């Protein structure tokens, strides 16, 4: 997040965006983001067991949108990343009843998804 974003009030910040996502291979726990998608596509992607990530500068807005995406799939629980993870490991919602697999991740002030390589 840039200095300009930090000075903004929540109402002035751009709305969060939803992106395709994948976990990076290896021990980092990092989340990689891909193309931006709309809400309906995000829910369809989650129903199919793939990951999505909500990106933006407003933690509360990100979290609320992530919860609504996962809530459209079914009852869900929220998890935080483990200590070993780097700054691209993100908190997430996931179904409390499996299947489907996968997660809806969301960015925080200090934790950001990285661009898919």
């Amino acid at each position, binding site marked *: 997040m840039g200095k300009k974003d930090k000075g903004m009030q929540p109402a002035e910040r751009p709305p969060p965006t939803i992106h395709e996502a994948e976990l990076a291979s290896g021990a980092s726990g990092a989340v990689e983001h891909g193309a931006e998608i709309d809400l309906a596509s995000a829910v369809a992607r989650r129903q199919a067991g793939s990951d999505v990530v909500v990106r933006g500068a407003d933690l509360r807005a990100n979290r609320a949108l992530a919860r609504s995406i996962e809530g459209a799939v079914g009852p869900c629980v929220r998890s935080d990343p483990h*200590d070993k*993870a780097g700054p691209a490991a993100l908190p997430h919602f996931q179904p409390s009843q499996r299947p489907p697999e996968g997660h809806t991740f969301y960015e925080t002030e200090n934790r950001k998804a990285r661009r898919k390589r």
Partner: protein
Amino acid sequence: MRFYTPALIEMGQSDDDDVLDEQSRLWEEAAARYVAYLDTVRDRLPAGLKHLDENYYLHDAKVLSIGKRGGAFSLVLQLDAPPRSILVLAYDLLSAPAIEKNALPPKARMHGGPAAWLYNELERVEAGPGGWRESLLLSNGWEVRLHFRDVKVEEFDAVLPAHGDGHAPRAAFVA
């Protein structure tokens, strides 16, 4: 669990933004305290535990099976991150394992399919036979507590469950 406590995980299930903001702050504090502790003992990790610590991120790994035989305790995991390898952990126990089946409140548990590895905490044991203690919190609500010398780690390419979908590959039957 001394750092990633079930109470903190339950707090993370709140619908209240103020509660969740406070939970995030407490979580980051707990993580920092745990990392600070781990840094004081990391240079004494035995080879297997060091390999596990340095090479794998186990959060949300599927726990495909748990077994025990005498002084051995095994977990078979499928990692959540691609290529979703199968990991076989064989612990060399120093005392009997303990399993608390209701460690996690129902609101924070997941159901259906294999349980997931949520969080673990390691602790160096200085007294008696020494070794290490590990607490593992699973998504079915279990907390598994192990006291061990070291853990042998073997990694395999996933064949069943298949990569990605967690289901068996289609099989062809020939008469």
